[in-house]
């Protein structure tokens, strides 16, 4: 009897799921067409609002002609979504929000101000601020993202709270929104709040920070002082990418207090920045006990390209493990004539491994040069 009940339940489930999938497939096409129509209507309304004639030009004056005129336009926008059944109104409102979010990143100046005003007047900012405190992480993260697109300064407080949320996507969206809304001043507090950064977070934040160029350097230098190794590493890598020589003293100052992973990031940054002041400290790290750190130091010297480092690299080539030898030879091949001569001399070495490594880089450089000439 029990088996029969379970079996009929399974048959029922199969039938429901199968029919449900088929119905959903047919319905999705119809819904998509209907939503497109709502979106087109919303886009038309939004265009009228954004391009509508407005009186006055001092938009800073409270209750001035401009503000009154804008309020009138916003009222018209609001009434356009307020027609039809309850379902219709909800759909129109959702479509308008989508249309506004779609254009938010491509507007600037006065039009951007109009859009921000509309976000507030329509109640979208308030809604998102409430959603940014939801118990569900994906709703929070989405709300943080939308507050960014709405340029909602009033959302800053709730965004700061989300910087310490347990979910990384929430933290990322909150951080990006704060940087976007407040600007670079938000960066140092964000970096000091972060306990651990994943590579994904680095990918997301770096894009936003790079848009500020070298203005971000002082804030990243603050971040280097964070207690979190991953934050330190990220800030150092960013300083390397930005390539500002002003960051070199800070990087040198903190070199001796760090874990090998962070030291390697610093060595790489020195190579990218290309400041000769870093050479003494890089040479010091050629003696490190950690193989990967020696490799990073050798590569940094190759990127700096100073002939003064040839002897130190040659010592690595002659005495170290195969991986370090390869890095040293690669660097020597980048240091002009003196490096190449050292490699040529090494092809006569008694040590077969040294000979092979030197020949590899001489030959590959030759191929590259011929290729470039061709």
């Amino acid at each position, binding site marked *: 009897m029990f*088996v*029969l009940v*379970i*079996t009929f339940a*399974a*048959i029922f*489930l*199969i039938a429901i*799921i*199968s029919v449900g*999938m*088929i119905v*959903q*497939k*047919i319905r999705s096409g119809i819904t998509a067409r209907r939503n497109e129509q709502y979106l087109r209507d919303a886009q038309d309304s939004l265009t009228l609002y954004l391009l509508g004639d407005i009186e006055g030009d001092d938009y800073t004056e409270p209750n001035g002609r401009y503000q009154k005129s804008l309020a009138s336009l916003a009222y018209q926008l609001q009434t356009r979504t307020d027609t039809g059944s309850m379902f219709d109104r909800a759909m129109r409102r959702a479509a308008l929000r989508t249309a506004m979010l779609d254009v938010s990143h491509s507007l600037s100046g006065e039009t951007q101000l109009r859009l921000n005003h509309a976000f507030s007047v329509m109640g979208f900012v308030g809604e998102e601020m409430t959603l940014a405190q939801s118990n569900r992480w*994906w709703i929070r*993260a*989405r709300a943080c*993202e939308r507050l960014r697109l709405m340029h909602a300064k009033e959302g800053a407080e709730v965004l700061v709270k989300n910087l310490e949320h347990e979910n*990384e*996507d929430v933290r*990322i*969206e909150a951080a990006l929104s704060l940087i976007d809304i407040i600007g670079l001043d938000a960066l140092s507090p964000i970096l000091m709040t972060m306990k651990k950064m*994943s*590579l*994904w977070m*680095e*990918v*997301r934040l*770096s*894009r936003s920070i790079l848009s500020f160029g070298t203005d971000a350097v002082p804030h990243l230098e603050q971040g280097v002082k964070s207690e979190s190794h991953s934050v330190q590493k990220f800030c150092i*890598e960013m300083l390397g*990418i930005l390539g500002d020589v002003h960051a070199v003293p800070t990087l040198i100052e903190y070199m001796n207090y760090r874990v090998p992973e962070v030291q390697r990031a610093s060595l790489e940054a020195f190579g990218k920045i290309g400041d000769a002041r870093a050479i003494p400290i890089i040479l010091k790290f050629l003696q490190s006990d950690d193989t990967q750190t020696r490799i990073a130091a050798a590569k940094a010297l190759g990127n700096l390209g100073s002939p003064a480092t040839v002897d130190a690299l040659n010592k690595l080539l002659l005495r170290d493990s*195969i991986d370090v030898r*390869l890095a040293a030879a690669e660097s020597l091949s980048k240091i002009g004539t003196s490096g190449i001569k050292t490699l040529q001399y090494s092809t006569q070495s008694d040590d077969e*491994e040294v000979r*092979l*490594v030197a*020949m*590899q880089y*001489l*030959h*590959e450089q030759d*191929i590259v040069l*011929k*290729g*470039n000439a*061709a």
Partner: protein
Amino acid sequence: MIEFLEYLASLGLVAYTKFIVAYFIFVNVFYFTMLVVSFGAIVHYLRRSAFTEHSMIMQSEFSTPISILAPAYNESATCVESTNSLLKLNYPTAEVVFVNDGSKDNTLDVMIKEFSLVKTHRVYVPRIATKPVRGIYISTLKAYKNLIVVDKENGGKADALNVGINISRYPLVCAIDADSILEDDALLKVVKPFLDHDQVIAVGGIVRIANGCTIERGRVKEVRLSKKFIPSFQVVEYFRAYLTGRMGWGAVNGLLIISGAFGLFKREIVLACGGYKHDTVGEDMELVVRMHRYCRENNIPYRVEFVPDPVCWTEAPETLKILGRQRNRWHRGLLDTLLIHKKMLFNRRYGVLGTVAVPYFVFIEMLGPLIEALGYIAVIIGFIFNMVNIQMFILFFVVSVIYGVMFSIGAVLLEEVSFHRYPRLGDLIKLLFMGLLENFGYRQITVWWRIKGVWDYFRGVKTWGTMQRVGFASSKK
């Protein structure tokens, strides 16, 4: 005497019937749990995907560089197109390591000519022992600066992959099959778990069946279901295996198989484990199990993850003969891996692997076909001795079919709620129909191939068997 035999048969039959019913309940409860876990994992994945713009990885200096390993044996007809296709994948820093595994045709000559290759003096460091390398080639053209071609003595796919791992320069290595078709953003999608967690050591991608799809210039342009029955059955099977199986195992860090057709690995761990094993036909599964074992035994925190986004397409066998060979080989590979790592079975030291994943693969995947076949034999004996309760037999058969259909439909449902890559209503209806139809004949024949795989394994058969493929050209419009 006959009465005694009948008595013995009835005793055996009753005992086996009880065992079969218990086993059936256990297996179905397990599958149902997996379906629920997978559903949760897919929903979580989709929620996270909503905040993942893969183009950001493409533009970032923080993305981890990848070496793509492409082993080739007698691929002169397709090597240029497949290499070009790999070089064009969307990823900021990637190199393609093409390994010519001692081809008897002119694969190497074709590559040298097409990509303007020259032999270099590059030092080959055999961190994993391999067959000798005859030469390493790079291109004189800037456009192919990310291509390295290695010529080596023939040693099989595992050996070719090991050479590729030795040569590769980047921290992540991507192993693919020569006939895999990758989506443009395949690497961007599978690298994401590595960016999310630094403990990730391997990521498997979903492999989908390309038969019936429109393929243009090495890319899937239009997704359609094949008009033939055998590939269509396999589509449902792959949904079950990947969307409800591997997705669920990935969620509990118990994923034991990453398909040889497409997987991304942390090079450092692969090297520490000794690379691919040469003398097994299931080298892809064996490596993943060894990586798990290495990390567990050395107390290294780790994760093996699965990405359900459609990233890789492959051509499925279209004839029973070829499909039979493939399933036979898969089962031998499974058996070999489980016997090599038998120490893990019910061993709490290996966590969820030792207590759940390995026992599942032993008792359900490996022994399942034998138990099912014995069930069919028991029914025949029962009929001979007139001991079968026809009503109960029909009920049991109907119940088993219904549960089989339920899990197939569950897998199709997962596809529909997540990626719905089959946009046509007709294809959806056909998939649902295949989920029902596969229980009458197809399922039984796969059981037979797997039993034959066990038999061949113990006979010492180690060959792959010829895999004739129709080729993707036939699916072009």
